[in-house]
């Protein structure tokens, strides 16, 4: 297990040596998207239209933050459950997405897509939302304001603490961790 500092946009060189279980401190711009925004992004791709942000090397954070108070950069902003985005994720990796951030395991199809196209999946600690907000230094809605908490935001993060769950070799930290502590007879 190692700790690696990374800055977005990510390249294959950045993620090639990451292993499930490594810690990552992520800095740079990342984009928020959850269920409703994913539906719209995939529709744009299918229609051959431009996306509201460049997918090449991008990192998507599955989050719908609480609204900020006046003068507050970001209110609580922990990860949402990732499997709901699984049906959209292969296509996004095909189009250049390098990493997603969420909580909970991914489908076999998403894991395969990450191996095939060079991508990783990071876990943030679900429910640790107020703490995660302190790593977010700037936030701006860049698309789909009508979706409220589900709008796409550009977040500038500084040393956001993450765990590598799925690496480009196809390893899975959920499987590894659970196998180690399972005592079922």
């Amino acid at each position: 297990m190692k700790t690696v500092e990374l800055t977005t946009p990510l390249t294959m060189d950045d993620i090639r040596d990451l292993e499930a279980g490594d810690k990552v401190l992520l800095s740079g711009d990342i984009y928020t998207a959850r269920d409703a925004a994913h539906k719209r992004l995939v529709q744009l791709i299918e229609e051959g239209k431009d996306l509201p942000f460049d997918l090449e090397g991008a990192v998507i954070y599955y989050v719908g933050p609480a609204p900020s108070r006046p003068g507050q950069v970001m209110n609580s902003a922990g990860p949402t459950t990732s499997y709901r985005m699984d049906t959209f994720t292969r296509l996004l990796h095909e189009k250049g997405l390098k990493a997603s951030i969420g909580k909970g395991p991914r489908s076999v199809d998403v894991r395969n897509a990450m191996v095939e196209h060079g991508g990783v999946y990071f876990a943030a600690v679900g429910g640790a939302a107020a703490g995660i907000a302190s790593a977010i230094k700037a936030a701006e809605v860049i698309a789909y304001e009508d979706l409220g908490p589900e709008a796409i935001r550009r977040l500038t993060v500084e040393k956001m603490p993450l765990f590598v769950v799925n690496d480009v070799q196809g390893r899975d930290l959920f499987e590894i961790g659970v196998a180690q502590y399972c005592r079922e007879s």
Partner: protein
Amino acid sequence: MREIDVAEVTRAVKDLCISTNIHLAPDTKKALRDALVTEESPLGKEILQVILDNHGIAEAEGMPVCQDTGVAIVFLEVGQDVHLTGGDLEDAVNEGVRQGYREGYLRKSMVADPVIERKNTGDNTPAVIYTRILPGEKVKITFAPKGGGAENMSEVRMMTAAQGIEGVKDFVVDRVRRSGGNPCPPIVVGVGLGGSFERCAMLAKESLLRPIGTPNPDKVYGEVEKELLERINNLGIGPAGLGGRTTALAVHIKHVPCHIASMPVAVNIQCHASRHGETII
């Protein structure tokens, strides 16, 4: 007969929305602190510490513990000697939710049409409201915001008498196994037994309101809870699902009589941000 203006209900609901989302109930905090001592996985310990640190940050900054401030679930126990004045009771509850979620800067997570349009209502209403009429001249309001991630891992199953208590145990353990890291473990597992299709789901939800660490009033089901907790923690799912000995903080069972043909079982999963609070008017 005691007259209570529904504006008092609005005020109480508003205050509960804000306080429960920022200040986690003491029973949950204690259970997580205890888990930090017993957890064997170094990564699991680290995650538990992150969760505990988050409680402190949320309270110091007045931020919600979790960004998912939930569907607003409100249990009303209205004394039958109370006369509610000044307007519609459910409107008063929803107004409290509206004000609480706005003034507390809490996330608005409700969509008006559940399937087709899914447009956000913008104020976290409507609340899910359950009202009971009981003897007395008080109004008790219990507020339990429920996040979507854990709620999605819940399930009702109409089992048969032949499947018995072993069938129930296997179903509960399997439901937790299939949930894995999705519902933000360590979780609280609420189990409703008996009643009818919808009643057992209500029982499972109500069982989550029992403070962690308090025993089941029924000895037999108390033993079942202990066995289930051990089996669930032997799954190895652990904090955040990344492996460890703390998958659940507690299993709570609530049971009522049921039909001779039926054995309804409901499992309602609660994330580690187990939020609930109550006010008596």
